[in-house]
């Protein structure tokens, strides 16, 4: 555990060090490359912090585009996590199902933005380009197929006896323990705590989309897996709503040359809440950046779990989002 803590800090500091030589616009790309598979969320966090500090209000359409891409990004990442969990269970066919569905999401992202994971779509003040309505329509059809498959995967996780025997009652986190700790994401939601940064509507268009967080009551690894797959389905529905309600208008507002002020942005990622703090004093180079990733806040929960054994530790870490298959970096 100490090693992973060391690693997390080390990798984050690599990004922080770049802030000495890169200006704030370039830093958004660096933030995206802190963490490959969920990078878009980091760029949204960075842009939200910059816009907050500069007191810039971004156009409504840009918020909707960010929401669509953010949810697609979260969908693929949740499926990736589930694939890794299934692989750890030696349940290869489930793992391959998750990979196949994830590949479809990546294809949608590729069609919409031109890249599969690191999208570089989010820029301070809005988004880089508008989404093609025709491709969006086609994507919704494809998304329906993915959501049907996700229902199948949900059924397998809920009903398969092998999955239940390996996951039920493992690494139980009581609701009180979850409330009294820094755990976020599936760790909290799986224990029945309905905490989700998207509810607050600080970023994206979630306040127009009737967002209600997914919760489960088990508190064990099975509940956390169910949260993940239900979030995939929920993301699909959010994307459909966002496409239907997308307003017309501009996609980018003007940003000042320098940032004067400070801001904290908190973004919900599949593992939990990523926190970005920035402060600047009028120049294009920021004075200070602080990053706390979801993995960092989640890993302090390990000693409060019940029924932790060595053979289950990999599963617990994967479901909680601590140093998961693809680490926080």
């Amino acid at each position, binding site marked *: 555990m100490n090693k992973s803590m060391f*690693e997390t800090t080390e*990798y984050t*500091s*690599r990004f922080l*060090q*770049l802030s000495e*030589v890169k200006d704030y616009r370039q830093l958004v*790309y*660096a933030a995206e*490359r*802190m*963490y*490959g*598979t969920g*990078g878009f969320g980091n760029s949204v966090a960075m842009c939200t912090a910059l816009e907050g500090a500069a007191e810039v209000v971004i156009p409504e359409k840009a918020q909707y585009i960010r929401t669509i891409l953010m949810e697609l990004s979260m969908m693929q990442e949740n499926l*990736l996590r589930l*694939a890794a969990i299934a692989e750890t269970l030696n349940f290869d066919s489930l793992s*391959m199902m998750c*990979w*196949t569905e*994830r*590949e479809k999401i*990546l294809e949608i992202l590729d069609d919409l933005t031109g*890249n*599969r*994971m*690191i999208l570089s779509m989010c820029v301070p003040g809005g988004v880089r380009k508008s989404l093609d309505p025709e491709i969006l329509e086609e994507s919704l059809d494809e998304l329906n197929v993915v959501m049907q498959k996700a229902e199948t995967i949900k059924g397998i996780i809920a009903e398969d006896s092998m999955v239940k025997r390996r996951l039920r009652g493992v690494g139980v986190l009581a609701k009180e323990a979850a409330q009294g700790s820094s755990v976020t994401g599936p760790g909290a939601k799986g224990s029945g705590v309905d905490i989700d940064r998207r509810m607050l509507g600080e970023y994206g268009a979630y306040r127009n989309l009737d967002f209600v967080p997914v919760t489960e009551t088990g508190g064990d690894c099975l509940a956390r897996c169910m949260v993940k797959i239900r979030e995939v389905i929920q993301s699909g529905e959010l994307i459909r709503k966002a496409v239907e309600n997308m307003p017309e208008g501009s996609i980018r507002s003007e940003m000042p040359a320098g940032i004067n002020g400070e801001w904290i942005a908190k973004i919900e990622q599949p593992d939990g809440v990523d926190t970005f703090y920035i402060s600047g004093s009028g120049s294009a180079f920021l004075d200070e950046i602080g990053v706390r990733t979801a993995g960092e806040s989640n890993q302090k929960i390990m000693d409060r779990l019940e029924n932790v054994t060595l053979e289950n530790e990999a599963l617990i870490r994967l479901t909680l989002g601590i140093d998961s298959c*693809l*680490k926080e*970096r």
Partner: protein
Amino acid sequence: MRSVAKIKDRFKIPGLKSLKVNSNWVFHFDGSGCDGCNAEYIACLSPGWDIERLGFRNTGNPSYADVLLVTGLLDEEAKRGLIEVYEQTRPDCKVVAAGVCACTGGLFDGSKGILSGADSVIPVDLYVAGCAVRPESIIDALMEITGNDTNKGTPEGEETA
């Protein structure tokens, strides 16, 4: 028992080397990067891309590897691991650096403790660009470096069985 000569005769393959072309084992080394390229290589093993249909197989042992695939940023910690892996590979093992971080260090080149690419540690045979590197680029590079031409048709002057 079938001898190698008989197999050669049966498939009319001019040299034993050609037999190896369609069976290559890949050892994947991921540095300390953002894991985008790592996920893309794992996607290559998934049903969407499936490099196993082209004769590539993922192995966990560097001494079996025909190709050493390096992805991700390399720092001092990863450098030690990479050298350890490289020393265990066979002399004819090819090295592919996939992704811009493994090629040059990318955006993070010049940061504290970051090396400028895999070639500052070990000799690299093929560089693949991309951030993150796309699965089709990885497959293309693997086929290029091993001479595997499964989906490029039969080369000139060779007969098929």
